């Protein structure tokens, strides 16, 4: 008993650890083990060792899809970090300062998060459709009719449209977290800033930002993970293959396509002989990609904190 008394953290850890291990980690391990088999999901499994991995990395077709999807996912990540996160921070700061109308902003910015993704895509269709989209109509009204385009379908813009939908829908999440983080900053450091005569923006940069640094880095980490696992918007917009030339294909969609895609179309389709096996393999490779980059980001975060503290 005194072993535990000396280590009270064990009691705090135990319930969460148990449930998490049982319902999250155990399924991951069990599912990952399928990547060592050849299996179509229905019949018998055959053990093939690392063959699936070799197949994935030596198939030029698969590799080109893989790198394209990876590039698209990274585009979403970079755009989010460069644009969305700063916007979230500034919005949170404005609300934190209780600028006029802050309650309205808070609800308005967050509300798209509640709407289910097919409806978000439908809303964007209503706005950006070539024929019935509101945006094109507005362009015509203001005399810019020659810029009318089928916005949703242009291959080069595809991934940016996906990013727009992801950002619009998820803007509130980061903002709420930053808001909570700002609320935890002690009033004294803020008051010290006022006393020194620091202006609105200086207060943000010199006082608030350093103190929510870890939250920012955590949000960057979460954005990375989300960009690698986001699936719905690309699927609805581009179908299982990710649009023309796979222009909206992202990592999670590629996984889905290999594991479940071929037999999931309106005309039937044949199940691939190794759907589950290869699908698990892609999921594991995806997992490792996410895992190692995340570990790297975390190492950066904590190393900085130890130095800065």
């Amino acid at each position, binding site marked *: 008993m005194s072993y535990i008394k000396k280590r009270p953290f064990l009691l705090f850890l135990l319930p969460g650890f148990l449930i998490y291990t049982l319902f999250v980690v155990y399924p991951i391990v069990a599912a990952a083990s399928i990547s060592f088999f050849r299996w179509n999901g229905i019949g018998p499994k055959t053990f093939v060792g690392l063959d699936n991995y070799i197949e994935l990395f030596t198939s030029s077709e698969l590799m080109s899809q893989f790198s394209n999807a990876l590039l698209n996912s990274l585009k979403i990540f970079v755009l989010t970090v460069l644009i969305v996160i700063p916007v979230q921070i500034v919005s949170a700061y404005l609300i934190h300062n209780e600028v006029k109308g802050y309650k309205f902003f808070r609800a308005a910015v967050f509300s798209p998060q509640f709407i289910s993704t097919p409806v978000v895509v439908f809303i964007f269709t209503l706005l950006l459709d070539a024929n019935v989209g509101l945006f094109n109509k507005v362009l015509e009204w203001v005399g810019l009719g020659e810029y009318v385009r089928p916005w949703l*379908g242009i291959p080069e813009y595809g991934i940016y449209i996906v990013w727009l939908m992801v950002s619009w829908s998820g803007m509130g999440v980061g903002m709420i977290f930053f808001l909570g983080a700002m609320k935890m900053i002690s009033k004294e450091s803020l008051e010290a800033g006022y006393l020194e005569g620091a202006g609105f923006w200086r207060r943000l940069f010199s006082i608030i930002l350093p103190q929510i640094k870890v939250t920012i880095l955590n949000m960057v980490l979460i954005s990375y993970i989300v960009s690698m696992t986001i699936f719905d918007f690309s699927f609805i917009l581009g179908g299982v293959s990710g649009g023309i030339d796979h222009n909206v294909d992202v990592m999670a969609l590629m996984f889905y396509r290999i594991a479940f895609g071929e037999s999931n179309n309106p005309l*039937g389709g044949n*199940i691939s002989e190794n759907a589950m096996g290869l699908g698990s393999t892609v999921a594991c490779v995806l997992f490792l990609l996410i895992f190692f980059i995340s570990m790297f980001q975390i190492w950066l975060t904590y190393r900085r904190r130890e130095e800065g503290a």
Partner: protein
Amino acid sequence: MLKWKSLMAVLAIAALFIAGCSQNDGGASSPSGGSDPSAGSSGEKVTLKVWGDLANQAVLEEPFKKINEAFMAKHPNIKIDYDFAQNDDSLNVALQANSLPDAFFVQGNKSTKMKEMAKAGQIIPLDEYFTDADKSRFPEEAINYTLVDGKMYCSIPSFFDYAMVYYNKDIFAKYGLNVPKTLDEFVKTADTLLSHGVTPIAVGGNGDFDRYWPIQELAPGFINEDMIALYEGKPINEARMTELFDTYRAFAEKGYYGKDFIAMDGKAAQLAFTSGKTAMIFDGTWSNSIYTGTSLNIGRFAMPGKDGVRYAQEGMNNFTTYAVAATSKHPKEAAEYVKFLSSLEAAQILEDANGHVPIVKDIKPKDEIVSEFSAFDKIGKNIYHAFSAAATEKSKPQDLLLTDILPKLMTKKITGAEATQLLQQELAKK
């Protein structure tokens, strides 16, 4: 804040309590294998767990309620516990966990899934439950749809779906156009519309399947024999295949689809048609309710071939094709239910609700629209299924068609002859 937290705690405890209680509900919600094991098949009460198609729940809810009631009226000792719980994910989980309901819907020979399930022994053959009288109502294609290795594994479909042309009657009337009876007339109609500045046809160039409907409709008129050859593993006639691909490309090249069709997906194409921007659209019988809901004056016709033969394409409707799980504790009763779905009574209920295209003569069509759908001369082969039939693990002509050949033809990157060469190379990969 403490009071609020206690409220949450009370709610959570109540939730877990109710959750615990709900599993003691008894037979109806019992999870594994479904039915109540204590009742025998000697006429005592039996409950069957049946899964329906979640993706189509919106159109199937009402008719199936009636179908289930009709069945239960005929079989007072059987209770049907019907849930729209099935999509690919939940079915996969049930298959792998050996947790299938008594009966569930399958896609027949449209895909290889039913074959795999039969081979793995997860569904049972149903031949002993269907008498010859039951089967005689159906054409051969319908019965073939249910066969794996010569045995029936699902109920026989009563309807089929195919792709054709919906047209805006008002636009046609405005330019004095009639329903084309041959391929040449169709081309003339489209040219006339073009010359008046009207976009003839709406096609979604962006989606794999949306850009595919034109070729599904054109194919029987050009290569029906070759598609049959593909089913039998015989070689195709390159000249005919090239002509088909060239025609497909020509439609796009001539501007029949409008300015920005490459960027439109299926939904955008449908919106373009319903808002009156195009005169026609290539779409299927399954989309009919979208068009009947508008206030437009809409007509339908099947695509004619060069010889004026109007072709529908094969494509059985899965709303009534159900299989019986091997783990069912009441296979006889489940098979009775599945058999009922093939009956005239059940089919008529579905027909009255949704207006499907029947393949059995004794079903009364819901309205004239169904008669319009039934106004075709022959049922041709379905090019996607034909290509799939020729596929192996290494060679996937159907994927090649969708993701490679069709987009390249549409964007004028290859000619019909080059497309045929690509196809031959893929077929040779066996």
